[in-house]
């Protein structure tokens, strides 16, 4: 076995209120594809950020090429040969492929001699790009604009960019999540080619098929802790899934029994071209219906189309048995359907507005008469919900932008709960919230179901889904892949369904 190129030992990472990583280790060797395995929130991304100099670890050591290092910035890590390719590529759409590859380190001319400012050498930008793309076997025109490329091609360009900087370690964070099967094959071929030239590759993916096909070695994380590592050849899918999900018992979900009543909302064969298809489900009074799946499975898209933010291309929606089709969220709010978005920073709070104004925003109709606001009634409502969700602030008159991220999220939840919905759709309700708040949010969700609300909860966290839901629908690649009742919940089965196909097992040493 080769000498490791990077060794992480006893790494821990604390954020206020959260222990993101706790005594984690990871050894990366050149010429090897290293799979980083774990559920969402297991700490993979945090670990990657530590490897690439975005975060400095709270504890532990990193050795790179045999020497202890401390990256002070992502730029420094990059200079030393560590490159990342993100899930969603970050590139300049209006610039050409060659410009994107060489941005920041473009070749310059030799003249004027002695001058510190030497002009760009465009001819070598083009020729070097062409050589690079050719050596990787890519059929992409160096002059093409990045905005005209497909997602797969963009990934390839990012890889070329990383190599143009002599990357020794290439980290790929779910590079295939937006690719078709053929594109994935091409990407994996390229990864193999790179591995054979001696580059170390850290590969993050939730698709086991891929991992078994490409990875040589794995490290499993769970809840910020190191669980195990080993050779992929000797690993079994069942065993890996158990390592991922088998969790400690200290996570309790205050799920209370609620009386499940009549059907409130029914979706029949919802369809949106290229995004999702054949989505049919029912939600009952008092029920919490979980939507589980990998990121990109189409869960949020279904919800957004359901409430009228995006248009549906087909299917029927019935609310209390009556067919409805919402053209805008205004219409669905009127029917008592409320959607709490996942991206609360961008779609949730109005940062420059006060906490009180944010909380009452969805119901300014109800709280005002003749188009005029009623500050007293607003303040009362805002105060009540801010207290209920324990928003930590100096007062409800302060702007939301003065709050911490977790408290901003609480304001957004408060806002939607204050709107008195009958059907509540929560998209990742506890993402990025600290543990204490998390359980109070879970308590509130449970209470609301007890009061007779119908709740749809989209979540990528399996323990949350299993702890809170009465029933779980699992989506995979835009379709419903399975449905489970609470009594039939099985972590491994649900996880496997979400990863596409419940019967696939790869045995030892399969080529």
């Amino acid at each position, binding site marked *: 076995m080769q000498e490791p190129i990077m060794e992480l030992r006893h790494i821990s990472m604390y954020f206020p209120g959260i222990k993101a990583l706790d005594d984690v280790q990871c050894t990366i060797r050149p010429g090897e594809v290293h799979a980083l395995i774990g559920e969402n929130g297991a700490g993979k991304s945090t670990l990657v950020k530590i490897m690439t100099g975005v975060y400095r670890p709270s504890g532990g050591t990193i050795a790179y090429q045999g020497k202890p290092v401390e990256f002070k910035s992502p730029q420094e890590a990059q200079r030393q040969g560590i490159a990342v390719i993100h899930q969603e590529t970050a590139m300049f759409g209006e610039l050409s492929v060659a410009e994107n590859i060489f941005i920041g380190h473009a070749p310059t001319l030799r003249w004027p001699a002695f001058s510190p400012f030497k002009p760009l050498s465009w001819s070598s930008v083009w020729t070097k790009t062409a050589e690079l793309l050719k050596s990787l076997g890519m059929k992409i025109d160096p002059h093409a604009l990045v905005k005209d490329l497909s997602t797969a091609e963009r990934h390839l360009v990012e890889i070329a960019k990383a190599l143009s900087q002599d990357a020794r370690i290439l980290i790929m964070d779910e590079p295939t999540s937006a690719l078709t099967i053929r594109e994935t094959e091409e990407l994996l071929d390229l990864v193999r080619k790179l591995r054979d030239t001696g580059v170390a590759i850290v590969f993050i993916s939730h698709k086991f098929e891929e991992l078994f096909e490409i990875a040589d070695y794995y490290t499993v994380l769970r809840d910020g802790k190191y669980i195990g590592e080993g050779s992929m050849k000797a690993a079994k899918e069942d065993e890996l899934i158990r390592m991922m999900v088998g969790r400690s018992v200290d996570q309790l979900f205050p799920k209370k029994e609620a009386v499940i009543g009549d059907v409130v909302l029914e979706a029949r064969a919802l369809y949106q071209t290229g995004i999702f298809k054949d989505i049919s489900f029912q939600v009952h009074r008092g029920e919490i219906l979980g939507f589980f799946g990998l990121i990109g499975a189409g869960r949020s898209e279904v919800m957004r189309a359901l409430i009228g933010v995006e248009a549906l291309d087909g299917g029927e929606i019935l609310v209390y048995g009556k067919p409805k089709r919402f053209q*805008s969220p205004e219409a669905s709010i009127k029917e008592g359907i409320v959607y709490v978005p996942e991206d609360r920073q961008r779609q*949730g709070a109005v940062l420059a507005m006060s906490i009180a104004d944010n909380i009452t925003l*969805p119901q*300014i109709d109800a709280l005002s008469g003749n*188009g005029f*606001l009623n500050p007293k009634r607003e303040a009362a409502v805002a105060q009540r919900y801010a207290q209920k969700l324990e928003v930590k602030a*100096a007062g409800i*008159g302060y702007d939301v932008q003065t709050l*911490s991220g977790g408290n901003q999220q609480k304001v957004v939840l408060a806002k939607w709960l204050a709107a008195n919905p009958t059907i509540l759709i929560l998209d990742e309700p506890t993402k990025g919230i600290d543990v204490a708040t998390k359980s109070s949010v879970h308590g509130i969700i449970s209470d609301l179901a007890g009061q007779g609300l119908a709740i749809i909860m989209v979540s990528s966290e399996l323990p949350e889904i299993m702890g809170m839901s009465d029933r779980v629908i699992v989506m995979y690649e835009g379709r419903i892949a399975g449905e489970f009742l609470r009594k039939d919940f099985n972590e491994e089965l649900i996880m496997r369904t979400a990863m596409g196909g419940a019967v696939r097992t790869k045995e030892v040493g399969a080529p």
Partner: protein
Amino acid sequence: MRKFLKRRETTLALIIVGFIILVSLRSPRFATGSNMYDILNDTAVLMLASTAQFLILLTGGIDLSIPSTMAFTGMLVSMLNIREPNLPIVVVLLITLAIGLALGAFNGILVGALKIPPIIATLGTIAIYRALVFVVSGGQWVSAHEMSSIFVSIPHNPFLGISGILWYTTITIVLVGLFLTYSKTGRAIYAVGGNRPAARLVGLSGERVDFIAFSLSGAISGLAGLLYVTRYAAAQNDTALGYELQAVAACVIGGVSVLGGSGTMVGVVLGAFFLGLLYNALTEVNLSPFFQMGIQGLAILVAIVANTLVDRRNRHKMLAKRNLV
């Protein structure tokens, strides 16, 4: 009280007071009541134009067409005055508001319904409306002797010792201030400007807000145009040139964010007043008009830097406070 002191409007008011004291050390006439009254009268039109701009900045847009809307409305009512010299003031006002509203609503359709970015839409209409001034006037002025005495008395006509121009301006400002603070639509303007996708999810339509804001802005610009032509007793083809940017300057100095969603009516009034003071003071100390432009520019930059710093410090303090709780 603490909170009151922290507000940037308070800071600006204190700066204004300090500025007045400073200038009056050099020129004692500056701080007199009558000079302040004159400055207010001189600044009233800018205050209205700034109010019009304020509404659009709040939505996250910008309205470049304000001076052309002022000029076109001013020209139309002046020509109407030649034909109908004895129309009662109320009727003249209503017609003015209607013309301004129509011009603003056209901007509103371009931005709200056709989704053209505000800066582009109003770049078009600033030219179109200005061209319309020439079209209706045939390139001619309407000068003082052609205007009826009722018409030219509009900005003067003191009531309770205060000039007409200040009454119209004050009433408009108070109404807009109340509208923004106490009406549903006002709240929606702040919400849409602050975070469009979030506003959309709570059912507040950005398109509707754009349309309403531009329509109102147009009506207010129209009124500003009427007061401009009657105060100077001349409706010219180049009326109010450059007011769009002066109005932006007043708003920015008053603490309005050009990114939308934040700012107050009080701040805008103070910002415009500060610009008025600055012009007057610079003339008072005999500074060349070229310097005036430079100093105005400097004032804007200082205001922005100060705002940013104060904001950052306040947020820092807030965060520190929160962690203690």
